[in-house]
């Protein structure tokens, strides 16, 4: 199963608007997408579960995807994080 490491750089972490964008992006793919932080693994398409991971600024997460568009999904999510969710 392909996976990537992402470091969340924006100020509030995966919270508020960035969390909404992250989950919306994940939901747009067919593949099963999981996010892992500190030994906890959650469904990246669940807003509740992503928030409950409590990902802060500079935290590292692992994202795994499995399914027909797994590579595309990982690429999209890493671009979103690299672009700092469109924040300055």
């Amino acid at each position, binding site marked *: 199963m392909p996976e990537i490491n992402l470091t969340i750089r924006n100020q509030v972490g995966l*919270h508020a608007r960035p969390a*909404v964008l992250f989950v919306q992006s994940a939901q747009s793919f067919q593949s099963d997408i999981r996010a892992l932080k500190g030994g906890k693994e959650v469904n990246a*398409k*669940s807003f509740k579960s992503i928030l*409950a991971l409590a990902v*802060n600024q500079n935290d590292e997460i692992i994202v795994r995807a499995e399914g027909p568009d797994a590579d595309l999904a990982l690429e999209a999510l890493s671009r979103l994080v690299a672009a700092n969710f469109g924040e300055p």
Partner: protein
Amino acid sequence: MKQLKGIAASPGIACGLAFIYAPLDLSIPDRAPDDAPVEWERCRGAFSAAMGQLQDLRSKAALEFGEAEAAIFDAHKMILCDPDLEEELKAELQTGATAEAAVDTVFRRVISSFEELEDPLFRERAADFADVHSRLLCILLHIQKQSLARLDSPVIIVALDLLPSDTAQMDRARVRGFCTARGGALSHTAILARNLGLPAVTGLGDGVLALADQSQIIVDGNEGVVIAEADEQQWNDYQQRAQASMRARAADETDAHRPAVTLDGLQVEVVANIGLPGEEVGALQAGAEGIGLLRTEFLFTGRHVAPGEDEQFEAYRPIFETMGNLPVIARTLDIGGDKPAPFLNLPGEANPYLGFRAVRIGLARPEMLKTQLRALLRAGYNHTLRIMFPMVATVEEMQAALGLVEESRLELANRGLPFAEAVEVGTMIEIPSAALISDQLAPHVDFFSIGSNDLTQYTLAADRGNPAVAWLTDSLHPAVLRLVDYVIHQAHAAKIWVGMCGEMAGDLDAIPVLLGLGLDEFSMGAASIPAAKALIRRLSVEGTKDLARQALAQPGAPSVRTLVRNWRQAQEKNAL
């Protein structure tokens, strides 16, 4: 005729229809569940109805308050399309729960799991789930959630208590008065009512909620009573009084721009308390001669990152520009404790009012306080800036704070930026220790401003937000008056001036006493200014001195109020 007695929280009389703003009852009724697929359809129906409401709210919020405010509804919408929550709901329905019971169980579980998170930023998200939880239950249980945002006709609001979240979107133009079961003279409702110039009676007991919705009631904010089922004569009598008090108010407003000069020729400074940029405009219209308290918390509360110097400068500058050369007293950051700011990352405290807050935080994080001081000094350039510190308890704190003002000036001078040079620096007197050592504090500062709300709650050891003890927090208690008397004496002995910026300064019962004690400046909510100025013009300093002495000797706040009201009635009779 039915009469309920409460606390006279805001003066005036209103006659009108009761609007019972009842707390939501979201208890789950017993109901035999249908088959799981039927209950699931009910859930889906509620989810899609909630989605529709949120779409609607989002577009309205975006129009009225901007994108940032609207974004909160995006989070709520995400909760409605969460596959994990869907799984949990389905599992709950499989156990034979009704749709409403399943929603209740699943959301309560999620809310408590968020409340247990260590990170305060993420812990706060429990509120979003709680909001969606009550939205879904209202739909499933067919409960019409009341709103104060759109009132069809003028009403008197009857509520358990009102929170800022209830009143933020209130349709102010259609509210005539307030009655609440809980709360005292310093509750949110009381302060709001005085700021709006509307009558309010608080602390009426839960019986007030049993009044019939849409029935005719009378609120007498002067006497602290609410009357229901009045007979015709009584109703007419009160309506005449309500109209007379509206006429008096209109006359006061016409005169509001004249200075407040006492009968014996002393001009008293009457200024306004504001908490948001833009409010200074309303304050000037109401007759304010300056800003006696600029609360700066608006820049800090709810922020995840502290605002920088330039951002603060840009926020303060328009206020100074509007005020021109009139004085503006900025109070430095008064957060912490009950006014949380996420960027501070402070742990919860068992006793926030006695905890790490206000200048205590500022002195522990001098860079943060100096950032604010530099922004204020820059914004006050070519204007009349005064600075004061909240919650000073000791001389050492005062000296440390003054040291930071000096450092801030030096830093700005080194950067070659223009800033206000001659700035009066003062301190709030709101902790009894500060009042008792006011003789030692006075030589260090240019002025005192008595924060009567906190001074009252600390002196009487009664939390003004706690309905069980709110009745104790009346600033006219002789213990508070004696501290005020002492502070004014010490200040005048040191040749500095004293103002007051709590609710007490605009309280018509308190003003004659404060004038007699020698208070130099009165700072209040803008709506209180016209009546306060009109009252001061009818008083003489010499005449109020004796009243003040008698007030100090009274056994409690109610007898001080009775004393002042009888004295004023006698004065007005003499004047006729």
